[in-house]
Each structure stands twice: as structure tokens, then as C-alpha cells.
């Protein structure tokens, strides 16, 4: 923003704006709420809900445009002639300098909002008790804020189709729909799959799926997310939980390397995660997440390793650690292959790296999920949330897995210590070569590396521990803990620290801030410009911990990590340029663009 910001007046308050702003954009940025249903910061303007109507005062010396209206006077029982100003939708009206806008201070606006709200509820069914949106529904919120009247219409409301299956993920209820068209615009503009449309008019108006199609693109759950009312509900979440019982943790989606900012909604009473929701971050995922990512919360509980084991026998965690220590004690570091975990946080990997280096290991590989489908919106082929973090820590690319298999068969590696239990290359998992080595697997989920391993150390997964994940663009983002780990498991960095301690390498307990300080110190001590680790901009993590997960400091370079190829998709074109609330906490910069998998 330039120093001499241009200003306009909203309810007698001076508000700065940028060229091209609409009233609602400038107001939202200034923290002023104008009620709205159909406007969404990431979608085009429809201006059809009329909830954001505001009064625009005429320029000095000019008369306001007034409309002749007939108002029913209940005292006399007749209609009386009256004038009212023509109100404008704040989502569509662009701002000009010196404009005088009245929102909460205008009686006309207050009356208009109440009328719009009453109109939207005219045919609304009495569904709150059975509606999944209850508790986070705009109709409920705005009734209290802007209407507060009882029903006046005594007729039977219009009945429309309910529980219409739109596709594998979404169910539609036409009676609850206010026809704001957010879902249609989302499919058109962001998902680039124009499969929804409006049909009929007036009170028969409803959303319809294109004939012969289903709502089955990769972003269907976002239609439910943008729906301001309970018209679209996710089949996955329907009737599972009540939102007022859920708490939200600010997390990072671990479904792929994009690192979409998300909320993990969980029930604290049962320590159970019910859903992911996108968290707005203009530089990463804007307002969106893909279906695969949204549903990846299921993996928190699916296929978990819930107990440590030695030679296939379930044992106490301490015993497993003891066994791992005895296997690792005194071995030749050159014969030890270490697999870093690209599904695990930066802290977990940093502790593992330190353990490996202290043991004299020289060969570092990488575990993780195999590549999957990708698109031009958000989804990346790399299905691991921390590939970039592992690379940055290693200061080089991890060695190819083929070398690992080869090394084990040739006897070059006698021990394999892995964080994570799957390999990015499925074929390598299937090869029997690894069976020959003594294997220690640290992991949260079952996988080839855990099967038949000499020691399996069970640890907490991403939802059960705080940690930093470095996304494809080099943004180090903090993900907080949502639920408690099953059966008292510890985060991986604690377990690895316990192993290292038993080997005489360091303290038994390592706090996250200590690990972060170490990462940061390593980054500073290495010569800048030569080593990748030196460019992990982690000082924010260490020096201003209060800012974690909220905002980058003003001095940090916000554009450096975000380069072309990264988000050069329909997202950029469709969403309007909003104030960027960058919730990342530091970034890793690379010479070459890591987002090339797009």
C-alpha cells in the first residue's frame, strides 16, 4: 500500500482502499464486517443475495436517487407513500475516493437487511435440529444479528426436493438452499468443472447437476465448504458430529507437498478427528483444499501402528527402545542406512539426522508415500508433506532407493534405520533385498518397512504432535497438535531422542524449541550461499515464537519462496486479490524451483 492511501468513508470511519477494490473488499480488509451470503473472497461477484446492500450518499450538492415506495402503516391499515434511497450491493460497487457509504448507521440498510433475511427464511424448513450446518449457519447468525422477528407468513412453505445425491460426496437439500450460486461459481471458476447450474425461477429455484453428470471432480467438498447454509452437506460428515462440540486446531494438510493450511476439527471428549477444513492462506491454498486432502483425516486412524514391537512381538515402548539401542550400539556407521521421513515433521527429521551423523552414518535415503495423481489447481504428485524439509536438512538430495536395495544385497549396509514405513518406490518395497538387513522402523502407520522389522518403534502421527512441514514452495509452516496419540505414544522426535540418549548422545528429553534452535543454529553456522540448509529462514521460529502460525514479520521476504510454477493455476485468475494473511512461519529457498512437478 502506498504511503498516501486513498480513503473512503464507511459509517463515518475513514477506510483505505486500493484501486479496483469493492466496498466489501476494502471493509473486510479493514476488519469491518458487512453481512453477505453470496460474496466469497475467492469467487467472482454475483450480487444476488442482496444481504450486503449499503447506502451510498450522493456527492455534496447533488440529490440522492430516491425510489417511490408504498409502506404499509399498521396503525391506519393502509399503504402510505414514502421515499427510500436506492441501495447498492457492497460486493459489486467499486470504491472511489471520498465516497460516503452508510452501512450500520443507515436505517434504510438495517431495514433492507431484515427484509432480505426474512425473505430468505420465508420458505426455509424447520431443519436446524437435523441439519449439519446448525451452529455454523449464516441464516442462524444473521437472524439474530439482523432480523430478530417472528414469522409473519402463515402459508405453507414451498416444498422442494430434499436429500438429492449430487455425487459420491455431496447431498443437496433444495429447501434449505438460498440460491447464492457460490457452489456453481466454485465449480466454474476454481475446479474448472462447470457441472452445477441453477434451474427454475422464483421460489422453485434450485441447484441442478448437468444431465448425465455427477458432482465428482476433485474439489467437490469445497462446494459444501462455500455453502453458507445447510443446502449442501458432505456425505462424509453428515450426522456424524455436532459442530459446537468440535474444537479446531490450526494444521497443515499432509496429503501432498502443497501444504494446504487447514483446520483439524476434532471432538475433545473422544479425541477423534471428524474433518479437515481449509484455512485461508493466500500464498499457499487461498481458500481451498482438494477432496483427497479433506478426506485424508481418515488416515489418522487407519492402518496405525499402536504399539512398539521387537521381532514381531508387541513390547513396552521402553523395551523396544532398549532393543533398538543394543542393535545400534557400536556399529560401523558406514554400514548404517538411514531413511529420513518425508511424512514426518522437520523436528523429527532433524533429530534423526543428528543421531545418524553422530553414529557416523553417511548414507541418507528417504521414506514416504509413492507419487499419485495431480492437477493444475492444488494437488501435487508428491504425496509427502515434508519432502522439501528433508532435502533442506540433508543439504543434498537423498540417495536413490535403488542404491539402498543394492547396498543391502551386497552387504554394504547391514543396518537400516527408517523414519516412516513406506517407500516412495513401491517396487523397492517389494524387493526382498531389504529383508537381509537388520531393520529398525520408527513409524505411525503400517507399511512394508515395518513388516518383519527387528524393531518397530510406534510414534504419534501428524495430527497428534506439533511440527513444522516445509512445503513445495519452501514455506516452513507450523502444524499444531489436534488430538492425543493413541495409547500414550510419543512424537517421533522424543523417541529418537530417547534412543540417542541411551547411546550417550544427548539429553533424554528434547523440547520442540530446543530442536528448532538447533536447526536454526546449524543454518547460521554453515556458510550462506553454498549449502541449502543455510537458507532455511527459520529465525522467525526461534526469535519470535509468539508469531508462530500467525504472520510473518514485516521484514521477512514474502515473495522469495513463492515462485512461478507454484500456484500458477486457475487459483490465481479466479480469486480476487485479497490481503494476504500469510500464516507461514519461515521459508526455505532453493536455487531451483521445487514446484516443477506441476
Amino acid at each position: 500500500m502506498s504511503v498516501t492511501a486513498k480513503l473512503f468513508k464507511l459509517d463515518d470511519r475513514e477506510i483505505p482502499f486500493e484501486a479496483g477494490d469493492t466496498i466489501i473488499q476494502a471493509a473486510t480488509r479493514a476488519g469491518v464486517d458487512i453481512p453477505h451470503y453470496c460474496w466469497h473472497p475467492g469467487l467472482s461477484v454475483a450480487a444476488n443475495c442482496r444481504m450486503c446492500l449499503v447506502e451510498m450518499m450522493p456527492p455534496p450538492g447533488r440529490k440522492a436517487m430516491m425510489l417511490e415506495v408504498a409502506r404499509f402503516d399498521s396503525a391506519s391499515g393502509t399503504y402510505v407513500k414514502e421515499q427510500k434511497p436506492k441501495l447498492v450491493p457492497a460486493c459489486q460497487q467499486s470504491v472511489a475516493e471520498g465516497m460516503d457509504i452508510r452501512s450500520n448507521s443507515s436505517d434504510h440498510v438495517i431495514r433492507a437487511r431484515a427484509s432480505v433475511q426474512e425473505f430468505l427464511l420465508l420458505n426455509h424448513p424447520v431443519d436446524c435440529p437435523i441439519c449439519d450446518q446448525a451452529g455454523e449457519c449464516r441464516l442462524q447468525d444473521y437472524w439474530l444479528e439482523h432480523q430478530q422477528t417472528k414469522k409473519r407468513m402463515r402459508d405453507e412453505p414451498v416444498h422442494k426436493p430434499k436429500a438429492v445425491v449430487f455425487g459420491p460426496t455431496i447431498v443437496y437439500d433444495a429447501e434449505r438452499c438460498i440460491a447464492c450460486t457460490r457452489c456453481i461459481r466454485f465449480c466454474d471458476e476454481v475446479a474448472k468443472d462447470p457441472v452445477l447450474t441453477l434451474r427454475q425461477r422464483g421460489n422453485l429455484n434450485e441447484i441442478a447437476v448437468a444431465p448425465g453428470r455427477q458432482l465428482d471432480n476433485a474439489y467437490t467438498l469445497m462446494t459444501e465448504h462455500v455453502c453458507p447454509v445447510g443446502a449442501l452437506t458432505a456425505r462424509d460428515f453428515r450426522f456424524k458430529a455436532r459442530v459446537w462440540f468440535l474444537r479446531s486446531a490450526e494444521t497443515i494438510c499432509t496429503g501432498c507437498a502443497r501444504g494446504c493450511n487447514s483446520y483439524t476439527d476434532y471432538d475433545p471428549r473422544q479425541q477423534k478427528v471428524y474433518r479437515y477444513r481449509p484455512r485461508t492462506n493466500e500464498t499457499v491454498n487461498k481458500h481451498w483444499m482438494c477432496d483427497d486432502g479433506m478426506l485424508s483425516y481418515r488416515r489418522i486412524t487407519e492402518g496405525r501402528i499402536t504399539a512398539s514391537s521387537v521381532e514381531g512381538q508387541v513390547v513396552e515402548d521402553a523395551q523396544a527402545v532398549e532393543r533398538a539401542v543394543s542393535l545400534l550400539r557400536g556399529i560401523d556407521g558406514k554400514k548404517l542406512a538411514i531413511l529420513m521421513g518425508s511424512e514426518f515433521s522437520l523436528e523429527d527429521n532433524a533429530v534423526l539426522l543428528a543421531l545418524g551423523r553422530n553414529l557416523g552414518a553417511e548414507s541418507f535415503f528417504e521414506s514416504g508415500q509413492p507419487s499419485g495423481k495431480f492437477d493444475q489447481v492444488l494437488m501435487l504428485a508428491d504425496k509427502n508433506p515434508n519432502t522439501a524439509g528433508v532435502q533442506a536438512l540433508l543439504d543434498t538430495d537423498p540417495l536413490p532407493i535403488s542404491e539402498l536395495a543394492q547396498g543391502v544385497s551386497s552387504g554394504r549396509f547391514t543396518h537400516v534405520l527408517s523414519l516412516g514405513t513406506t517407500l516412495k518406490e513401491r517396487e523397492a518395497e517389494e524387493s526382498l533385498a531389504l529383508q537381509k538387513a537388520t531393520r529398525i522402523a520408527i513409524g505411525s502407520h503400517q507399511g512394508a518397512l515395518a513388516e518383519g522389522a527387528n524393531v518397530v518403534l510406534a510414534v504419534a502421527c501428524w495430527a497428534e504432535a506439533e511440527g513444522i512441514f516445509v512445503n513445495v514452495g519452501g514455506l516452513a509452516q507450523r502444524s499444531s497438535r489436534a488430538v492425543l496419540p493413541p495409547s500414550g505414544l510419543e512424537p517421533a522426535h522424543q523417541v529418537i531422542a530417547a534412543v540417542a540418549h541411551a547411546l550417550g548422545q544427548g539429553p533424554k528429553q528434547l523440547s520442540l524449541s530446543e530442536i528448532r534452535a538447533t536447526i536454526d543454529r546449524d543454518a547460521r553456522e554453515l556458510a550462506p550461499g553454498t549449502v541449502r540448509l543455510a537458507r532455511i529462514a527459520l529465525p522467525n521460529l526461534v526469535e519470535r515464537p509468539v508469531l508462530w502460525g500467525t504472520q510473518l514479520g514485516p521484514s521477512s521476504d514474502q515473495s522469495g519462496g513463492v515462485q512461478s510454477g507454484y500456484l500458477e493455476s486457475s487459483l490465481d485468475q479466479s480469486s480476487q486479490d485479497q490481503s494476504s494473511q500469510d500464516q507461514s512461519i519461515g521459508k526455505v529457498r532453493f536455487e531451483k524451483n521445487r514446484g516443477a512437478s506441476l
Partner: protein
Amino acid sequence: MEPIERDLDSAEIRLSADPMLLNVGPSHPATHGTVRIVVELSGETIVRCDVQVGYLHRGFEKMCERGTWNQVFPYVDRCNYVSPMLNNVGLALACEKLLDIVVPNRCQYFRMALGELARISDHLTCTAAMAMELGAFTPYLWMMKAREMIWDIMEEETGARLTHSFGRIGGMAKPPTDGFKEHSRAVMAHVTKTIDEVERLLLTNRIFLDRLENVGVISAENAISLGWVGPCLRASGVPYDVRRAHPYMKYGEIEFDVPVGAKGDCFDRYMVRLEEIRQSARIVEQTLNRLEDSGPINVDDPRVVLPDKHDVYSTIEGTIQHFKLVMEGVKLPAGEAYGYTEGGNGEMGFYLVSDGSGTPYRVRIRPPSFYVTGGLEHIITGQMMADIVPCFGSLNMIGGECDR
């Protein structure tokens, strides 16, 4: 009995000249609340004492911070549990101050009538228990019978004898029943008759008077500096009654006298309470005369008051209103407010802090009992051990209110 076989010489009793340390309570027949009094006795005279409260601390101010504002009412019921209606009304008044709303007149008179009935039951309990502890059992039964009648009224109106949870922000849970006035008048006639009889019985009893007069004296200055309020302060001659000093609801238009004592001894405290019962009966009569038989009991404000059940089940507007008020609670505007009421033991203060959400940010209660009990040490030091009983009884410490 076993015969004393010991030689008299060897059984010689040596009485120590040192003060004796004695522990009374926390559970003791004469402490009708859980309170511990550690006394240092020289002979039978108390030379030093330490009064320890907190045995009934349940941390309910903290508990208030997790529900909605209306969910605080059941907690304040358990403050002064001998007159819970006064607490209910006090909290409602504080919330309404923050919301800047005033309940309809019908509700105000209803609240006053119920409140004064609660005060009578409070004073009856205190005076009855005090008499009983000094050996007068008959008046105890008479007064308990009268209190039972008041609790019958409460049960009729609220459904509960003791913990009514009857107050609501913006009104009361229910309007008065059809028989409320008739029932209350009949009970008031009996209560005043009982008081007259009790007075005749006790005030001609030499033992009773000797146990109270000039025992546990406190001066007006000391009472004020200890933060005393209510009947105990008035017994020391300070005519401070919140209903008169800062009239709330409709107390400004009601005729009643504020009885004060002359010496500030246990007898004065006893007499002030007896007289206040008569004054409360006067107030009840006046409020019943002013209480309309029909009309709204709750404010007409959809932000605050639950909708009609029929609307909830048949219209979306009613459903939404019900949902917002029940699930999210009444949203008191962000800010602070101090609401007060003359409770059974004096000024009951509610200091509320709201952050604008439906959940209290802080609920602080100023319990009159806490400050009055703080003066117990002052009034029993120098008295005889046996004087603890009338002194403690006359202060009417209510554990729920004092310890919260």
C-alpha cells in the same frame, strides 16, 4: 462406672497456667456450616483466635466461565442456599444492567415478593437456629414450621423447595401461579403470628437474654471497616440497607422501615432480624397489592428471552432463536457491570465481566457472609468459650456463600 482406685495423692491434678489451644470445627455441632475456629484459652476466656473458612469452596466462580450466562443461575442458587431467590434476582439484575434492559413491572413485583419471602425464610432459619443452640427448642420448631410454609410457596411457584434456579435474564422462568397472592397472604399472617409468639417466649427468658446481651459487641466504626453489611451492620446502628440506600427494582415506592440496633451485640443482631421479618411481611403485602394478575413477565427482546415453544416447533425463526439462545447463550455486550441486591446477609454483589460471547468471562460475587465472618475473630476475642455459639449464630455465616 469403675471406682477410682487410685490414691488421691497420686491423682493430684496439675492445672497448667499456660493458655490452652483448642480446636473447634471444622465439623462441630455449634458451627452450622463448616468453619474451623482455633482458640487460645486462658481458663475459659478466649485470648486469641483464628477463624478459618474455605471448607465449602467449590470454585463455582470458575465453573461459571464454561457455560452460558443463564447457566450461572443454578450456581448462585448454591451461594446463600437459605434464600436462593435473592441470589437469582441479584444475578439477573446484574446481567440486565449489562444488557441495558428493564423487566416489566409485573416481573419486578413478582421478583420482590419472592425475594422478601426468601429473606423471611433466611431470617427465620438464622434466628431459629440461634435460639436452639442456646437451648430454646420450642421456638425453633415454630419457626421451622413457618419456614416450611414459605418453602411450600416456593415449591408451588418454582417447582423446587430450595434450589429454584428460577431467575432468567430478562424475566423469570414462569409467571406467578393463580393462587400465589392468596397463598402468600395466608402464610404471612401465620409468620407474623409466629414471630410475636417467639418474641413473647424468648424475651421474657432470663437465660436467653443473659447469653445475648453485651456479648459479641462491635462498634459501628469497626463493623464498617471490616466491610460488614446487612443485619449485622444495622445491629451496630448503621442504617445501611441497599433497598433504601440504592433502591433497585421498585423498592423506592414501597414503605418499609430499616430497623437498627443500639449496641451491636448479639441481642441487637437477633432483634434486627426479627424486626426485618415483620418489615419483609409489609413489603410482601405491598408488592402483592401492586402485582398485576396478567401481563408479560419477560422483556420483549428476542436476543434475550426464549421464544414460545409453539414457534420453536413450527417456524424456522423460532427454531433459530431457540438454537442461538440455548446453544450459544444470551450474548451480553462486552463490558463490566456491578449488580447488587440486599441478600439475606446484606449486600450481595455481582461483578460481571463479559467479552461479548455467550459465555461469562468472569463472574465475581461479593458475598456478605465472607466479610461478616471476617469479624468473628474480633467479636469473640475476650469473650468466654461458650459465647462462640451465640456470636457465630448471630453472624449467620452461610458456607456456600462465604466460601463459594
